[in-house]
């Protein structure tokens, strides 16, 4: 098991280095130097060259990459000249709010999808299963903004129970307390995930139900409830650990669109605003942070699966 974990860790490090190279090359290709942002559009090209020389933007690409890497290791994500602030502090201001939105959405998605998938597998081809499958198919084909618009129309306009705008407060406790404003964005993000989670949960539960140990449990006279609780749920949930890791890129994209739709002051909205300003240091830094988050999330998921599943542990 240690050998497997070490190999898995090594792969992650290689992938992280690869990501940093890709992001740096992209940044270098579309935003070679911030000189124009610093000196202004009317600066002479001589002044730009001098600035580039002074701050090292005329060095070979490899040297520049190494100093970019050095900065990253020391927690320096770059500087946004459009905001006159370090990218790190820009992200830090908003990370808690986005983590709350996405974390709650992921939690709700799991809490809904696990029982739903098990129910669908146990009552296979029943009316309830068919309705849930159809709904999942529709949700799965729906961009999150379309779902958000439907939820806004129904729950904020037709029946004005909830707010169509997310909480605008910058303090996280206030945001959490304002659940009327936060419920729709969280649901929008959660329901899209439920669609894919429940489909996987259903098929993994069906696989488990066909296993011999379920037959044995039934044959020895265990009540069906205990067969499901003790023998099926835990085994059927194992693939979900991997699936949650794999769903992280979708979660980030959904977060971006949901924050835009509900005007929620998080990382996604920062990314959207930076797109409008063509603020490439912020855009690429957030892409990098997102990619690192995805790699670490998948690493944690694999380690968790190794812990949870003895069949992998022994292999």
């Amino acid at each position: 098991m240690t050998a497997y974990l070490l190999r898995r860790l090594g792969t992650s490090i290689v992938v992280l280095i690869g990501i940093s190279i890709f992001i740096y090359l992209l940044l270098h290709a579309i935003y070679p130097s911030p000189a124009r942002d610093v000196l202004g559009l009317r600066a002479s090209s001589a002044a730009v060259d001098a600035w580039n020389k002074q701050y090292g933007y005329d060095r070979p690409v490899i040297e520049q990459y190494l100093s970019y890497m050095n900065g990253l290791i020391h927690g320096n994500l770059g500087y946004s000249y459009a905001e006159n602030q370090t990218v790190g502090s820009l992200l830090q201001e908003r990370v808690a709010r986005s983590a709350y939105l996405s974390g709650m959405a992921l939690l709700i998605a799991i809490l809904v999808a696990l029982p739903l998938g098990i129910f669908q597998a146990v009552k296979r081809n029943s009316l309830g299963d068919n309705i849930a499958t159809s709904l999942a198919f529709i949700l799965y084909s729906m961009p999150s903004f379309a779902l958000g618009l439907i939820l806004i129309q129904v729950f904020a306009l037709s029946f004005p129970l909830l707010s169509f705008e997310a909480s605008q407060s910058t303090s996280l406790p206030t945001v959490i307390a304002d659940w009327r404003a936060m419920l729709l964005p969280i649901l929008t993000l959660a329901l899209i995930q439920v669609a894919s989670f429940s489909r996987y949960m259903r098929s993994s539960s069906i696989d488990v139900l066909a296993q011999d140990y379920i037959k044995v449990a039934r044959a020895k006279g265990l009540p069906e409830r205990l067969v499901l609780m003790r023998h099926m749920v835990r085994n059927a949930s194992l693939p979900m650990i991997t699936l949650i890791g794999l769903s992280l890129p979708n979660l980030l994209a959904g977060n971006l669109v949901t924050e835009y739709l509900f005007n929620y002051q998080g990382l996604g909205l920062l990314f959207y605003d930076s797109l409008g300003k063509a603020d490439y240091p912020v855009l690429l830094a957030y892409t990098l942070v997102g990619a690192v988050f995805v790699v670490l999330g998948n690493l944690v998921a694999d380690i968790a699966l190794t812990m949870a599943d003895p069949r992998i542990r022994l292999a």
Partner: protein
Amino acid sequence: MAGNHASLPPLDVGRAPEGGEVGAVQSGWRLALREFSSNRLAVVGVALLLFFVIFSFLGPLVYHANLLQANLIDAHDPPGAGHPVGTDINGFDVLGQLMKGGQDALEIGFFAALVAIVVGAMVGAVAGLAGGIVDTVLMRITDIFLSIPFLFVVLILAVKFGASVLSLSLVIGGFSWQVPARLVRGEVLTIRERDFVLAARTAGSGNWRLIRRHLLPNALGVMIVNVTFQVADAILAVAYVGFLGFGLHYPNIDWGDMLSDGSGYLTDGYWWLIWPVLTCIVLTVMALNFIGDALRDSLDVRLRRR
């Protein structure tokens, strides 16, 4: 899917069909087609997709709409005579816009899927056949591109280089080859151990010929299924980019952009600017997902019920 298989005609194995066609055993593709057409959702999917293709590409030949000149007198007219789906805030005809938007979405979808599958198949086939260090390097590169949030990069490149049918197709396709690469590699790893590959090698086939004539054709099933999902995902990606306001420009039309504009009038009751285009996006993507699922069920021998 709960198809009704009792109604299927029995397989004519070892008996000549009445049509006079001599085919003792049906080929794998015929079996797959039979399985596919017996799947109700697949038939719905094909019908929906055909509808949208006809609607988008032949519709404008029959239904001539003004998409060129703003007409503020006829702005935000509700559906009625002359404008079956009403007009938008500039007086453009919504039905005509839906048709043009469908053209652009389907074109980008198919072209992006083509780019993704060609790149993915090449990467996967080379990695699977070569093995060793080449395989490791290619698969780590695949991992790297799988970890980078796809939508973020597409948006950054759309802002930098502008969005057109060509650029969006290339960017979306260029960042969607990872999954087909993994799938094709997996197929190639099993196919390359089979005897006919050894036979082809013995007969003097080079690597390139092996990939082209033996490995890729045998991985075709997996590739066809994946292309269907790729088209769906690309259409969704275009809609996302358009909804955020960085999509296609005049004279092209982006469904996501239409929906984004329309959503600003949610409280004004201009429902025809919102729900028709939303339905178009969802139904097109759903049709492709239905087809993809049914293709997977019918092409994968292990999932076939017969």
